[in-house]
């Protein structure tokens, strides 16, 4: 090599300069990463080591009007696993299955939850029994990624009695997660399903808290509490309803398990729903946190259809309970008044094209509207229907909101069936020559034909009859009453109608067997033809007739005759009115 000192020192200088440049380049790279991009990397490091563990907020308690508990929370336990991959979650669960029962379905459900949100602990047992929790707590050290949390569990003390309106809670489904209404929900959270739990989800939900645990690179929990300040869950405020649990329980005991029936009781001046029950019923407590497959199958294959709500979902021809609607329309139109008679007395039937029967083959003779209501004379109402004409009947029904949902604050209310107009609807259905307006009017006048109502919507109509013609929207949860004038009758006319209805529940009327000692009940029976099966029984009414405090609607599937429903209804009224008046007596 050339080893002249000058050359060597020249090369040394070159080497020193290159080293210096390399040093500066390397330190600048570190300066960029550590000083300039520090925040970004720091955030990433924090994200690496902290995992959010949600702390479920207790759902709001639901109370009846007297403060009695309808829905509350019991301490429960949820078990979750923190896991870096779906495979390790499966492995961990398989390992756990040696000490606690875990099915393959539970494993797959947990993997689905994990996929939805991998950084959140995947819930493996949403509602773990205490003995399972005890076993897991013992083995906690071997499974550091296991997170056992006390999670409030929904409980309905009067379970089957409140099933018809309270709904239940369960884990949010994937379909619900996709719904924009639930955009701020996360997989694994509990959500109201059906009934009040769903209608008032926003109020009942509360605010989920969060706890942070520190994990290592393998997703094992290294530090549990105090890793980072936690946010406490905020419980939701309580929800007070109009339901009178005493009455509700009485209703359930009346219906028992053998009847297929719906009962609704409403305060006519406010629309407050006092009781709402559909029989046979089920136990919503068994629905909480996932419906057991066998119970679900049992309910769905039961021919009595316990899951089908006979108050807000069932839709039936209103039958003779509709005659009050016909009467109100005719009186409002000034065509017939309570003491007026029809041209043809009832001889057990009426000829219009074909022969239209009255339910009483012997006939009712020459009677007034008042008597026709008392005895539910079909022939009388056929003639009222003809006087009104189809157009006025359809328009009248629409004015009485017979094509609208009652608006009760429950999900899944069925819309009633009623013609939207008197011409096109029938033309489309039967063809322009396929129907005769008169025949249709005849059928409609006695609550048959193209008319199917829900019990709750009929009850709303009867709140108008019980008051000054204003229908109150049924409300389960206390709010400002919403009342709409649907009838424009004078005060004496309204009173007259009520007295005529009181006649129904008297020795003269169709519901004389349902009379109650000391209370004047007003109402109307109905028997909906249901060939080839037994007829359905209706009763719509209120009490006391002079100043109604409660409207009760009862519908009994295959109940054969209206008085069956009437007997139930008057007992409900009696129970409510006596319970309400009793405290007044003691204070006196």
């Amino acid at each position, binding site marked *: *090599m050339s080893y002249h000192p000058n050359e060597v020192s020249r090369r*040394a200088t070159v*080497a*020193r300069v290159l080293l210096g440049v390399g040093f500066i380049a390397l330190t600048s790279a*570190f300066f960029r990463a550590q000083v300039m991009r520090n925040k970004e990397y720091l955030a990433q*490091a924090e994200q690496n080591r902290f995992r959010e563990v949600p702390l479920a907020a207790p759902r709001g308690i639901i109370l009846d009007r007297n403060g009695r508990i309808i829905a509350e929370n019991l301490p429960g336990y949820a078990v979750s696993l923190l896991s870096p991959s779906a495979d390790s979650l499966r492995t961990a669960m398989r390992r756990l299955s040696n000490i606690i029962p875990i099915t393959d379905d539970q494993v797959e459900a947990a993997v689905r939850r994990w996929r939805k949100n991998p950084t959140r602990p995947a819930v493996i047992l949403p509602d773990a029994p205490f003995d399972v929790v005890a076993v897991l707590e013992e083995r906690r050290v071997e499974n550091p990624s296991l997170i056992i949390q006390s999670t409030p569990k929904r409980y309905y003390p009067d379970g089957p009695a409140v099933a018809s309106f309270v709904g239940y809670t369960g884990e949010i489904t994937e379909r619900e997660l996709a719904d924009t209404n639930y955009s701020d929900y996360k997989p694994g959270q509990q959500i109201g399903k059906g009934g009040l739990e769903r209608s008032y989800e926003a109020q009942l939900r509360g605010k989920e808290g969060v706890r942070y645990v520190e994990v*290592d690179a393998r997703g094992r929990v290294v530090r549990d509490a105090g890793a980072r300040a936690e946010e406490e869950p905020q419980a939701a405020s309580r929800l007070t309803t109009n339901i009178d649990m005493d009455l509700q329980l009485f209703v359930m005991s009346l219906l028992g398990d053998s009847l297929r029936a719906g009962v609704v009781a409403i305060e006519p001046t406010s629309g407050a729903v006092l009781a709402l029950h559909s029989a046979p019923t089920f136990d919503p407590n068994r629905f909480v946190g996932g419906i057991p497959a066998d119970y679900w199958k049992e309910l769905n294959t039961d021919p009595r259809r316990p899951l089908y709500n006979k108050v807000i979902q069932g839709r039936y021809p209103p039958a003779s309970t509709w005659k009050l609607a016909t009467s109100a329309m005719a009186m409002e139109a000034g065509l017939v008044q309570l003491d007026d008679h029809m041209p043809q007395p009832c001889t057990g039937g009426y000829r219009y094209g074909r022969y239209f029967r009255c339910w009483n083959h012997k006939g009712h003779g020459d009677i007034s509207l008042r008597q026709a209501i008392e005895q539910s004379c079909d022939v009388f109402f056929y003639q009222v229907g003809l006087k009104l004409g189809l157009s006025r009947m359809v328009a009248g029904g629409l004015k009485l909101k017979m094509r609208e949902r009652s608006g009760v604050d429950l999900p899944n209310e069925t819309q009633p069936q009623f013609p939207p107009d008197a011409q096109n609807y029938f033309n489309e259905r039967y063809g322009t020559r396929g129907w005769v307006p008169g025949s249709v009017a005849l059928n409609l006048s006695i609550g048959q034909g193209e008319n199917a109502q829900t019990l709750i919507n009929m009850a709303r109509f009867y709140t108008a009859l019980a008051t000054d013609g204003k229908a109150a929207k049924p409300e389960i949860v206390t709010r400002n009453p919403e009342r709409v004038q649907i009838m424009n009758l004078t005060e004496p006319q309204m009173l007259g109608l009520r007295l005529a209805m009181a006649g129904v529940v008297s020795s003269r009327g169709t519901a004389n067997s349902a009379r109650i000692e000391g209370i004047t009940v007003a109402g109307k029976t109905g028997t909906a033809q249901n060939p080839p099966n037994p007829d359905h029984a209706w009763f719509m009414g209120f009490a006391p007739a002079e100043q109604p405090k409660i409207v009760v609607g009862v519908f009994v599937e295959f109940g054969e005759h209206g008085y069956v429903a009437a007997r139930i209804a008057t007992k409900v009224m009696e129970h409510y009115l006596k319970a309400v008046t009793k405290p007044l007596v003691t204070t006196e």
Partner: protein
Amino acid sequence: MTKRIPDVPLVLIALALSVFGISMVYSAGQTDTMTFVAGLWKTQSVWFVIAVCAAFAASTASVRFLDWFTPYAYVITILMLLLTLAIGSGAGTAASSKSWLVIGGVRIGQPAELAKITVTFMLARVLANRREPPESLLELWHPALVVGVPWVLIMLQPDLGTGIVFIGIFFAMLFWSGVNWRLLLLIASPAISLVLAFSTRLWGAWFLLLLGLVWLYRPYLLEGIALVCINVVTGVVAPILWEKLAPYQQKRLLVFLDPSIDAKASGYHVIQSQVAIGSGGWFGKGFTLGTQKRLNFVPEQETDFIFAVVGEELGFIGVTLALTLFLALFMRAIRISSRANDPFASLIAFGLLASWLVHVIENVGMTLNLMPITGIPLPFFSYGGSFMLASWLSVGVLMRISREGRGRGDLAAI
């Protein structure tokens, strides 16, 4: 003439680096879930003591003795590399390679570490024996053979990291022996072609520059033609062949070149290393307190990625301190090299410096994703006995060269 007193600054710098390094090995063991790593700092300390003793022992060997001993050492090294290929085994990240010499189930050491030193010596000997530096490619056959044989044996293990170190040593020592920079560029040209091959335009520009260089430097005609042809092959043909390979074949080739890379895992590791360093900020999270390290997000934190621990726990200040210590070590080595009293010693000093330098740049660069992951350790820092020993043996040799070199005793200078 020999001075009695050793090169104090050199020893102090090396001591400082070693103490710094062992502290980091200690910190690397301080994880939330303690593993065997927690106790490694003790082993490393023992190795450190042995290594310092070995360095002082080595410094008693005169340069003339080294000169005499070099050919034997070189031959022994080649034999050991062959033996390793036959009966070697892998370890750690490179479990599938054969880099460890194992006899009777006991891991004796990595002959490649020894080879770094003996090849430096042998190359120094070959280059120092020439009156003039090599001026043509043909004249380079001897130095190229000295490095090439062990290089091929190491690449067969395979150990890309050490292979890169050899290339670094080769170029650095050619430079120090006075080889013209244009010739160095010509030698490096095929590799540069390969790197630039991803862009036709860049490669084209480089090829024109190369033609200019060939014309300027005027190598022998055959050499010139061969050089241009090799460049065409590496720049044009190689990428085409590469494209024709199925992705799994490409991956196999890459993994063959360096078994420690597993594309998915190593990408994750580098990201975690960057996060660790970046989250350190100016002053770091505090000694032993790095969260990325404590929770095992940093991979190989006691060996290959130990510098990520420095960055996370001691911040930019700590990184700068470590790099400054290395810079001081290199500057000292240049000084020793330029004051050595004969070419052989001077070349040895520069070769040892080059070996360290490649290690530092590659290892530190890797932690920030500036360099590919090759599994090269960081001198004086990474846990590992034979590497600590090899680094200190280099220090010992430098001490001797410094003592025999020109200039006053350093203690006197202070």
